[in-house]
């Protein structure tokens, strides 16, 4: 490719050339969306290397990194929904359950009981809306401290989508996970940012298709 340095998916390119550009070090990116670009590059390069994707590189804003990670998770979850949709219906799963838990849908003014698919869609839609909200996240360069509390709430709810799929649609879960390693990424996010206690993680550890790296707790400061 003669213009390999132009990071642009021009009309007319073939599927195999889509976003095929070398990984650029984060420091060399000047765009407003450098973190997003970097995370996307990492995911495209090797989705199973969750350590590299999730862990905040030196010199990066931790909150911003979490924000962009969550955005990317929401974006990638769209494909999971597409896969789940034919399997998980109102008749197959009238309630949002995972193991013995029943979850209420927070996408409504008053949390209500939705079918599992509705819960998943509503959770995803409300997370998307929240992350795009001018009120809570007015900038993609810095995150207001008051909005940090939303991160763990959103992550917790998104985790339940995986939990439900694991217990009720294991085939879909496996099919999706083997390609995307999205569950591994979310799980590592939860551990790395210390969002949920280990006993709340109902999905067994072997659900991951990749080896989760150990968290070095000593080097981290909990911000919860």
């Amino acid at each position, binding site marked *: 490719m003669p213009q390999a340095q132009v*990071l642009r998916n*021009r*009309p*007319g390119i073939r599927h195999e050339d*889509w976003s095929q550009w070398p990984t650029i070090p984060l420091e060399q990116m000047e*765009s*407003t969306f450098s973190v997003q670009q970097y995370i996307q590059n990492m995911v495209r390069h090797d989705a199973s290397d969750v350590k590299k994707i999730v862990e905040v590189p030196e010199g990066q804003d931790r909150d911003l990194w979490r924000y962009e990670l969550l*955005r990317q998770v929401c974006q990638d979850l769209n494909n999971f929904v597409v896969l789940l949709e034919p399997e998980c219906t109102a008749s197959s799963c009238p309630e949002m359950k995972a193991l013995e838990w029943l979850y209420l849908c927070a996408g409504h003014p008053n949390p209500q009981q939705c079918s599992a698919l509705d819960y998943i869609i509503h959770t995803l839609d409300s997370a998307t809306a929240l992350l*795009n909200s001018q009120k809570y996240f007015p900038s993609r360069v810095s995150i207001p401290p008051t909005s940090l509390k939303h991160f763990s709430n959103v992550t917790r709810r998104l985790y339940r989508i995986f939990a439900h799929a694991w217990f009720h649609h294991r085939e879909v879960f496996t099919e999706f996970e083997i390609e995307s390693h999205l569950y591994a990424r979310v799980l590592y996010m939860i551990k790395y940012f210390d969002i949920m206690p280990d006993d709340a993680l109902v999905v067994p550890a072997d659900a991951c298709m990749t080896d989760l790296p150990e968290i070095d707790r000593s080097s981290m400061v909990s911000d919860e």
Partner: protein
Amino acid sequence: MSGSAAQQASRGSAGISQGTTVLNDSNGSATGVATYTLPGVLHFLQVEWRKFERERNEWEIERADLKARIALLEGERRGMENLRTDLMRRVKMLEYALRQERNKFTKLRQEKQTVSPSSEDAVAAATQPNAVTSGMSAPTENVPTLPEAVLSAPSNYGTLNFSGGGMGTLLNFSKGYGHVRSKEILKNYLREMSYLLTTSTTGGNVSPSVNPKTAASGNEDPSGLESTADPEALGRVIGKREAARARGTLPTARQFAAAASEESASEVIQGEPQRVITKIKRETPAAAEHTEGSKVPKVDTSPPEAQENAPNDARIQSPEEAVEGKEPAVKSLVDKASNQDSKKPKDKQGQERKESRVNDGRLTPDEMQELKLTPEKVSKVMSRLEGKGAHAKRKSPAEAKPGGIPSVVANTLSLDGGLATLTLNEDDVDEGAKKKGSAKPANQKIWRPKAVLRNHMDSIRAVAFSTNDGALVTASEDNTAKLWNIGKLEDRSKMLPELEPVYTFRGHTEPLTSLAVSADGQTCYTGSVDATIRVWRIPPLTRDPYASYQNTKQFKLHTYVGHSDVVWDMKLHPLQQQCPWLASVSSDGALKIWNTTPGHWQLRSTLWYENANRGGTNDVVKEAESSGLQNPTSVDWVYTNLNRIAVSYQNSIVKIFDAETGQETLQCRHDGTFDNTTSGQINKVVCHPTLPLLITAHEDRYIRIFDTNTGQCAHSMVAHQDSVSALDISPDGLTLVSGGHDCSIRWWDLTTRKCVQEYTSHRKKNDEGIWAVNFHPEASNCMASAGADAVCKLYSFGTA
């Protein structure tokens, strides 16, 4: 019966208003209060209406005027603040230096113990130039009491100038003190001034730089004015000119202003202006005499007033030279100017200057007549600018001598100095005018952003309005398309949360690249990197975003499977009733035409670069192989011949096929641009709705216009600073909009092919900026743009 009823009604309407008598007066035919006639009443109403309109216009003018004034004053204030901080800093510095010196001195004294106390002051003073200390006090005193100080301070500077001391040079911004910064501030300030003075539209562009011109002679440039048809602008310009003149002949300005306003108020046509002129004449020779006197190098003796006039004189001549260069239309003026040019060498004679004044004076009656159009305003403007503007005006002479030429010398060298000022000012004005063009006039019709839609997680690749009011669909690289109810934006108060999409179309597993919405607003089509095209029923806009997903299967109408690579673009045939076709292009090289009749979703035909058959004829294959870049990038139906379809390729060729036979009918190519790479590829092709034209957006920043009958390139222009990625033509066929990876949106007048507006929007992600610009299919005053920043923006064309 009906007649009397009408009469009654009319009596009712007319009787209420106080205008009854007016009606009678103006309509001599009306005999009494009781005998209203329908025509009479109508006439009355028309008269009234016109009167109201006129008044309204006047108010508008006044409002614009006041706005300009506010802007001007604000600019002035800012300028003063800058100046003040600068001066304060300098004061601090000097105080500090003084303290240091005193310390040193006391130390010395303690050491020697021989110095008498009386000499202390002397030493302290000696360490500072006299002028500085004295000069410092002046500006610092002036600064706090702003408006008056504004007036008095410059004259202080003037005097100091002549004292030849440190302060003088300082305020001349000579290199001595190295205060380049304050010079910069002043320059900016001046620019701002001239910019603000340009607020009137057409003729106004001339008048600000005119400042120097009008300040002294004031009469050379009616050219600009005469060309302005708009009385509003005219009035304003005149007002400003008057004001400027008032400033120029400073001491007499008040009289002059008074005279002018009196005259205009009493609306005397011929005689009065003359008086003014003579007044000017009388004043100016006097000034000239003053300056004659001040030419003697003995600076200190000449009164400040003379110095005021000196720069003015400098300006008298030079502007005319500029007039010559800049406004060749004004022949008579140019003649005059050249007359003066010839006289310039001898210009040191006050006599000649007087003559030139007289020349100038002859032009005034015209001006005064114009002046009468808005008499009150002029006087108003004058009275207020008399005070305020003077300060700003007087800055320019100071700046005119950046080399630190003492003003006295400048007097003799008036031409050069003045010229320098003038050119500088004109540059500034040009800049100001440009700035104004893109930013200003509040009453001008331009595209303005109306709303921002945020909900996508990644680049938005396509956006489409539906004819169904208020529906908008966006397609994004986050693998979803979203439906928005933009009608909700109208009645939404600011307090409500942000607009969320009504529905998110999930189904593709790769980024979406293209989008089409049917003319009836019921169906939409999305093309994706996953090589499929999905057909969706558009949900009702009233749908609750968090309604159950259970019934959403009904929205999924169909998935076209047939392409084997990224679907890059697609277009519905404009006449879906007769030809229910959807054309799509993919990087598998194919153009496919699909049937869009529900239930009969089959493929109609596939067209390749080398015509209907993949193999094609040998020579075509050869040509294709030579480039290897025959992937289609964009497609559009040729609206002037709806059997034809235009496809653009990576090798920057547009081919027009006959959709029925699949035969290639025409090639549009621009020779000499294709270099075997995609760097000049066509990113988008659109066909004109009524003319046999197609327009292409190129990766190498060009937009080209081709004739779809001949295939000739009719026009080629560099349109953006980076690749042009998106194009659309308004439904009325008059405006072209383009978007590029330079993140700018440009609107083009298709008749003149000139850019009429630019708006920078969206932010870059990677090297991608804007991906889509699209008009509403029916409303030419409505459009949307979307880009790599995952944001969609709506614009409307209007005044507010």
